[in-house]
C-alpha cells in the first residue's frame, strides 16, 4: 500500500531540496517543484511501496539533469556544468546514449522512474504490449552492443 504522497514530501522534502541544490544550485526550487510533479504523475502506478525515498532522489536527479540540458540548449555559456556527478545515473545515461530517443525514453521510464508497463504505455501514448516491446528491444540492443 502506497503511503499518502504528501507524507513523503513532509518527511523527505528538506533533504530533497538540499539534493536539488547540490545538483542545480539556484534553480533548486524549480527543479524540486518539477520533480515532485513528475513523481505525482508516476506515483499511483509504482509497482511497490519500497525504496520510496530513493525513488524520489532518482526523480529529482533526472529532473535536475533535464533542467540543465534545457538550460544549456537555451543559453550558450562558458560556465562549466553545475550538475554534480552522480555515478550510477551517469553510467546509465552513458549506457543508453547510443540508442534512439524513443528507446532512451522507454528505458528511463522503466529503470529511472520505475514505472510498470501500464505506466510506460500511458506516458508514451502506446499500448502496453508496445511499451513492453520497446523496453525489451532496447535492452536487447544494449546487450548485443556489448556482446
Amino acid at each position, binding site marked *: *500500500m*502506497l*503511503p*499518502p*504522497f*504528501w*507524507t513523503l*514530501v*513532509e518527511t523527505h*522534502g*528538506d533533504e530533497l*531540496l538540499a539534493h536539488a541544490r547540490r545538483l542545480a544550485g539556484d534553480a533548486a*526550487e524549480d527543479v*524540486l*517543484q518539477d520533480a*515532485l*510533479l513528475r513523481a*505525482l*504523475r508516476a*506515483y*499511483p502506478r509504482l509497482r511497490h511501496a519500497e525504496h520510496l525515498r530513493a525513488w524520489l532522489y532518482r526523480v529529482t536527479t533526472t529532473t535536475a539533469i533535464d533542467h540543465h540540458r534545457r538550460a544549456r540548449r537555451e543559453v550558450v555559456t562558458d560556465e562549466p556544468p553545475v550538475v554534480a556527478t552522480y555515478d550510477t545515473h551517469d553510467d546509465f545515461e552513458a549506457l543508453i546514449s547510443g540508442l534512439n530517443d524513443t528507446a532512451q525514453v522507454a528505458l528511463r521510464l522503466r529503470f529511472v522512474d520505475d514505472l510498470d508497463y501500464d505506466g510506460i504505455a500511458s506516458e508514451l501514448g502506446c499500448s502496453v504490449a508496445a511499451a513492453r516491446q520497446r523496453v525489451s528491444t532496447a535492452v536487447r540492443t544494449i546487450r548485443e552492443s556489448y556482446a
Partner: protein
Amino acid sequence: MTPLPESLLESVAAAAVREGLADALYTRLSTPIGRLLVVSGPDGIVRVAFESEREDVALAEVAAALGPNVIGSDRELAASRDALSAYFEGGEALHLPVDLRLTHAPFRRAVLEKLREVPLGETVSYGELAARAGNPRAARAVGTACARNPVPIIVPCHRVLPGSGKLGSYAGGPERKRTLLNLEGVTSR
C-alpha cells in the same frame, strides 16, 4: 529539519490540481476545539480528524479509499477553511459538500445522511435519529454510526444527545461536544 518553502509546496499543489493529479487534498486548521485535519476528495469533504486522532492513520485511510496522491494545501482548500472559520468564529451554518464514501455500512450511511438535515442550533436523540433513518429500534447502531463518523462537525454528530437530555458521548471527547453545542447556542445538562 527545515520545512520546504510554503510557496514551493503551494505551487506543486496548484499544478497537481490543474493537471487532475490530486486524489485528495488536506489542510490543517486551528479552531477553539484544537487543530483539525480536513481532507477533501473530488466530491466533497471525506474526513475530518481531531488533534487527538492519529493524522497518519487518517491520511492513510483516505489514500486507501481515494488513491495515494494525497496533497496538503491551504490555498486549494481556502473555501473550506473560510467556511469552517465562519462557523467557529461567527456561528455561521456549514454547507460544505460531503462525501461519505468512508462509511461503508448502509445503515450508518443512512444515519449520517439524516443527521446532515439537523440544522445548527437543534439537537436530536439517538432514538429519533434511528427512526428517521428507517429503524426506530436501532438507537445503539446510531451511536456506533456517530462514533465512527468520518466527517465530524460537518456531519453534526455533536447534535445527537441521549433521551435524558445529558451530553452523552462523543468521538472527540465530551469537552469538544460541549464547546460545539455552546457555540451553536445549545445548552445541555
